[in-house]
């Protein structure tokens, strides 16, 4: 279930991993320090040593998860040079809910998002992660505008539209909605973004 198993995981990382697993399994509300400690093979005292409150643990766990996802995302550089368009296609692909390593990311993302609507203590970390995600997407769009591959547009606004679709599809995928699969999500986003950017939808499908 853990996506990375680096050779030497220190205690703090193990605790963060354990927290991520429990959030994904049971939802943020159900996460308790004692259970995280048990899952991590640590004492509750050790967990408290690293994280003064449950909220801090949750925040750091989610940041940890998205950092790792970011590393994975950029870890593999393609052999060939990509156009800005193809780079954006790959970025979108990275954001789509799919089974395997990305699925847990999606569950955590949706959990955080949905909980933050209700729980003000989670909003700062949700807002921070959202902005990081959006900046990343917007940079891919801006690169295409600068390269002359995309028509002039507001990269932040286009990124917002892309994220609204990605979040909407992600929730449906997580809920096992039969109407929605990654294929449809991919082609729909490609079509709509293609229209906004003035490029062929096929070019935006990875």
């Amino acid at each position, binding site marked *: 279930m853990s996506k990375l198993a680096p050779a030497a995981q220190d205690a703090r990382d193990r605790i963060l991993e354990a927290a991520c697993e429990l959030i994904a399994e049971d939802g943020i509300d159900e996460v308790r320090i004692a259970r995280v400690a048990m899952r991590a093979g640590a004492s509750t005292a050790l967990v408290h040593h690293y994280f003064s409150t449950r909220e801090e643990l949750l925040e750091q766990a989610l940041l940890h998860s998205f950092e790792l996802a970011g590393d994975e995302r950029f870890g593999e550089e393609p052999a060939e040079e990509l156009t800005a368009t193809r780079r954006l296609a790959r970025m979108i692909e990275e954001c789509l809910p799919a089974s395997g390593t990305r699925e847990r990311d999606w569950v955590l993302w949706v959990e955080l998002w949905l909980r933050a*609507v209700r729980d003000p203590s989670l909003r700062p970390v949700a807002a921070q992660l959202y902005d990081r995600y959006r900046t990343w997407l917007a940079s891919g769009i801006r690169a295409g505008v600068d390269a002359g591959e995309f028509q002039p547009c507001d990269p932040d606004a286009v990124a917002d539209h892309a994220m609204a*679709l990605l979040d909407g599809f992600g929730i449906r995928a997580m809920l096992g909605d039969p109407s929605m699969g990654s294929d449809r999500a991919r082609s729909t986003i490609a079509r709509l973004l293609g229209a906004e950017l003035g490029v062929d939808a096929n070019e935006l499908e990875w």
Partner: protein
Amino acid sequence: MSPRPHIEHIRKPQILAAAAEVITERGLAATRIADIAERAGTSASGVLYWFATKDELLAEALTVDEERFNEYVTERLVTLRSPSAKLLMLFEACVDDYDWSLWIEVWSRALHDDKTRAARQRFDDRWREMIARVIRTGQSSGEFARTHNPDQVALTLATLIDGLALQVTLRDPLITSGQMLETCIVTAERLLEVDLRAEAAASEEQVAETA
């Protein structure tokens, strides 16, 4: 066992309405049966008579809210002539008259509870069909382009609305409901190759002229 149909008729809807209110105010996690009982003007055991779990209660409270929204938009749909006006009305209703906090709460629970998940699916199917029907009518009359399958357009729009609602709810005042409405309209116009506001205005003018 004595039948109590009249009590069911009176009590359950009141409890559901109270539950919907309290859950919207506090979120499901912070809502206690006692809170709902107090709001409904009954006792905790009065509430627990009808619902074994809070999730069951949420699923049904959502039902009440969805039925209310459904009735509201259905009534308004029949007062409008053009598919463009109907589509605009559906978007406006989503932005202005819809309880997103409750619905987002449902998504949260649906991740972990099958009953809630099933309820969400039912309502979503019905909502998407409502949009699809308007699109089909528009495509038959030629007001909307026939490029895309109506069910797929409806799915795209419903999905977009979900994602935008999340943004508005979480990032207010950075993302506003006005922006949400604009994005819905622009996206629909792109997919259906129509100027929704112009078409809607023209058709409502016609109605005024013939009146």
